[in-house]
């Protein structure tokens, strides 16, 4: 590679990269390449480790694990139907509340309702909501949300007790406080992702609506939201995924009780809370069952998250925006 040398002007400084340069170049490429592979390897290891540790339990309980609602470590009987129910119920409730607030907040923040200073204020609030650790929400839930909700809940139970939703009293922890805190915790995710989706709508689309003489809200409801709908739906799915896997606040607020109930005020349990509360003191057999439960949780959240990511990808593609 020294062949160009002979023609250099006498004072030329250019030379080929040194051997060390080439060595560094090659090793650096190799190392980064390995790191990229390692990310893939980690995900595989994650699935494999948890899957492998769950195999004994899968062999013992088969799919009956998913349809039984008994969790009794003394009798070695394990089933997670109640947890699956509780996970879905609390997450859907959280999604309805958090989704509504999150999407309205996203509209509010992107559609020029506010002078810059106020917009920054509300944006900060949403960001701070995301920054508070889960365990702090749990503590706040125990000492603020439950006491505030209790009289309301018990009044509803007294007057409207015949509706299954209100069929029990709220004695302390329960589904509703957990779902409310979940809603607060997924609000920032939903607001942030929906904001991105709304911002992707080209300005000319909005202009076209205004040009036809729509009011601001007509433009938002008839043009903006439909155009961004796939992205907003993606935001909701991602928020749902987050709610499914949310652990600490729920574990502290849901009451850890193995029952299937429609009542908003009765204690229940979720998969993540089951893992958090039972793992530290579990014996060998229970750990296997917990690994099975972890696998189920992992698969559900992976599925939901991939769905959400794919949906968001589709919006940006449909709107002709390049994302990688």
């Amino acid at each position, binding site marked *: 590679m020294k062949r160009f040398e002979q023609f250099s002007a006498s004072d030329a400084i*250019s030379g080929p990269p040194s051997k060390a340069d*080439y060595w*560094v*170049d090659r090793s*650096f*490429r190799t*190392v*980064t*390449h390995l790191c*990229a*592979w390692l*990310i*893939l390897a*980690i*995900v595989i*290891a994650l699935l494999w*480790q*948890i899957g492998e540790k769950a195999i004994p339990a899968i062999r013992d309980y088969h799919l009956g694990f998913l349809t039984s609602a008994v969790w009794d470590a003394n009798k070695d009987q394990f089933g997670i139907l109640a947890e699956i129910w509780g996970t879905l119920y609390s997450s859907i409730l959280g999604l309805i509340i958090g989704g509504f*607030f999150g999407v*309205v*907040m996203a*509209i*509010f923040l992107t559609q020029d*309702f506010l002078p810059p200073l106020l917009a920054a204020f509300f944006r900060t*609030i*949403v960001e701070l*909501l995301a*920054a*508070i*650790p*889960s*365990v*702090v929400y*749990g*503590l*706040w839930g125990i000492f*603020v949300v439950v006491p505030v909700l209790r009289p309301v809940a018990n009044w509803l139970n007294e007057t409207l007790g015949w509706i299954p939703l209100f069929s029990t009293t709220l004695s302390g922890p329960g589904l509703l406080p957990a779902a409310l805190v979940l809603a*607060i915790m997924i609000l920032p995710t939903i607001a942030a992702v929906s904001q991105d989706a709304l911002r992707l709508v080209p300005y000319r689309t909005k202009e076209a609506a205004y040009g036809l003489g729509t*009011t*601001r*809200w*007509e433009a938002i409801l008839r043009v903006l939201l439909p155009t961004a709908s796939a992205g907003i739906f993606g935001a909701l799915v991602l928020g749902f*995924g*987050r709610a499914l*896997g*949310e*652990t*600490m606040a729920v574990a*502290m607020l849901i009451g850890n009780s193995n029952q299937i109930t429609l009542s908003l005020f009765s204690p229940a349990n979720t998969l993540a809370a089951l*893992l*958090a509360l039972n*793992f*530290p003191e579990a014996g060998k057999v229970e750990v296997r069952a*917990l*690994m099975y439960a*972890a696998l189920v949780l992992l698969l559900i*959240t*992976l599925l939901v*998250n991939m769905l959400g990511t794919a949906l968001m990808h589709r919006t940006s593609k449909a709107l002709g925006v390049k994302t*990688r």
Partner: protein
Amino acid sequence: MTTRPDLLESMKGAKRFDLKRSFWEPRSLRSLLLSIGAWIVALIASVPLISVLYMLIVRGGRRLNWEVLTELPPAGFEEGGGFGNAIVGTLVMVGIGGLISIPFGILAAIFLAELGPDSQIANAARFCAKTLTGLPSIIAGVFAYAILVLVTGTYSAPAGGMALALLMLPTVVLTAEEALKMVPQNMKNAAFGMGCTHSQVVSKIVFPTALPGILTGVMLAVARASGETAPLLFTALFSNFWLFENGRAELMAPTASLSVLIFNFSGMPYENQIELAWAASLVLVLLVLVFNSLSRIIGRSRI
């Protein structure tokens, strides 16, 4: 003759053409109501945060003093005490998590953004990183439990740090990739034109230029990790003792953390513990906010 009705018609129209805003017209009324609704929703959404902050400052602030920052956790019936060991534990485990995830994540991001952005492995790794963003934090704990606690036979700070690393990794990788991609092609061309090898382009130009953006992501990851509880519950467990004692670090033993302390104390029937839980929450939130603001300040200083 024929124009007269037309004129009349157009004059009739003129009234309907009134350009002034009519308050009571249904559509402007509806618009107003919706706007008021949006305001109400936004205000309601701010209530929880204000309530949380209020409780933290009032209940946590009341108890916050030098003693709680430096003493060991009290037993059930004891008065006083603090959570000094938990602060140290949190910092050590976040540190371990960072030591693992930051270099590894940045190197992977360099591959994704620069050295092989269109390769199949890059697409697969990017997809995996995105998937990991949504990983329930408790699953990270289960994983670290499976590969470290079961193997070493003990709860430990490295096991906790490992679980945190898994949660930090996707944030580091994805934000670093974004930051690296923001470096103008122009500048890279200049470096290539000087006869840099690709690694030299990355190390001399691309990486330094993207550094603020990368640090933003790193700080975000650190902030998120410091608040995590679930992954530590059964990897680091908890401890009532100092991590460093008599100049020796007991790393391979159960380790305290602020978040697990809050969780443990929140369920105790003693007022002292509950007060400490609030004080610990305040410290934890401040810690998280410090990292968060650092991330923002660094992000703003970008060119």
